[in-house]
């Protein structure tokens, strides 16, 4: 009973992958409608990926649009159509990195701090949102996530986010970050050791979030 279900699911996945590859090929040939379909399919995922790293709605919106513009311009350079998602994430990853480089330079000259900006974003978001309890839970969640991520090295953090928040496979992460799979696994292992020790976020996940 279980075996046919798995086979059916695999067939569906294969069919979805083929459709995606066809859309990518059409988009590469200059079909605007095909690219719009790709946009509809992936823009939420990319938006979330950017938000996890910037924690700002405005920046996430702007960066998502920029990422898709870049993808639209460069789609002809994509050699393997079935790797569109990984390719899109590598564009997003690089764009977010550029964004933070620029931000760092701006902050250096304006003598402000990234954390202060993040706090300001949190509070402005709270003021705009009318439901306070939900806000508190969200705020607490993101604070705990941020606290945990601060304990990780840059690469550990990126690998962790790509694996468990963006739901990418090890092979995909290795292509996005241009690192070997064994390096990705090592960083992921270190991040998980720290995650197990981060009792506050684990407790939060087991109690409050479940209720929410």
């Amino acid at each position, binding site marked *: 009973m279980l075996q046919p279900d798995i086979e059916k699911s695999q067939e569906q996945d294969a069919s979805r992958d083929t459709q995606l590859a066809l859309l990518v090929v059409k988009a590469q040939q200059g079909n605007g409608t095909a690219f719009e379909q790709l*946009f509809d399919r992936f823009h939420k995922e990319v938006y979330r990926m950017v938000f996890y790293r910037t924690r700002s709605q405005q920046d996430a*919106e702007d960066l998502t649009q920029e990422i898709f513009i870049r993808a639209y311009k460069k789609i002809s350079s994509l050699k393997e159509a079935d790797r569109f998602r990984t390719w899109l994430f590598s564009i997003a990853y690089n764009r977010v990195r550029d964004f933070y480089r620029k931000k760092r330079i701006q902050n250096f000259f304006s003598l402000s701090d990234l954390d202060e900006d993040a706090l300001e974003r949190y509070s402005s978001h709270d003021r705009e949102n009318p439901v306070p309890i939900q806000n508190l839970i969200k705020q607490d969640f993101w604070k705990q996530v941020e606290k945990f991520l601060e304990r990780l090295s840059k690469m550990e953090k990126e690998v962790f986010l790509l694996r468990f928040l963006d739901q990418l496979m090890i092979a995909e992460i290795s292509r996005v970050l241009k690192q070997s799979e064994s390096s990705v696994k090592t960083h992921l292992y270190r991040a998980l050791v720290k995650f197990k020790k981060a009792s506050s976020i684990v407790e939060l996940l087991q109690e409050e979030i479940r209720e929410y």
Partner: protein
Amino acid sequence: MNTEKNHHLSEDQIIRAVVDESELSVSDRQHLGHCNLCRAQKTHLEQNLARLGQAASQFVPLPRKRLNLKASETSHSIQWSWNWKTALGTALAAAVLFIFMWWASQGEEMFENSGRENLIANDDMASESLMTEVDILSENALPQEYMDIAAETESEFNEEFINFIAPLIEDDSLTFISGKKGVQLC
């Protein structure tokens, strides 16, 4: 039972199994396959991570504006046209500035050239008059007043008078013979 306990996977091995189960040795994988306790630990960690992913996805605020590729393309073209206009404006301003500077430098050069030509002409004239003066002086070193007193210009000595004052050697036979070798005078 005791043997099974001794072979339970360590915390590190559980984490390795979460990262990639194929990283474990064959015996550890076999153990994980039939040990409920180890499997429960692995599942617990995986569930926590899955919950984290779900919560993160849920707690992402929805975009304020509806993301639209057409809107992005338009905003991009606006941005491009702004950049294009700025670039054109900058290029024009640079061209005007360049022309102005070139014109200014040319004018200055022309002024400098004409000034230099005038200066050379003046120098030529001055040196010509100086050379004339030098020529006059080399011919007659004495001033005109002295020349008038000496009346040299008006003196007309004839050849006869000069010969009288200073006779030619050929004409003076005595002196001429004494100058020759082997001639003895009495």
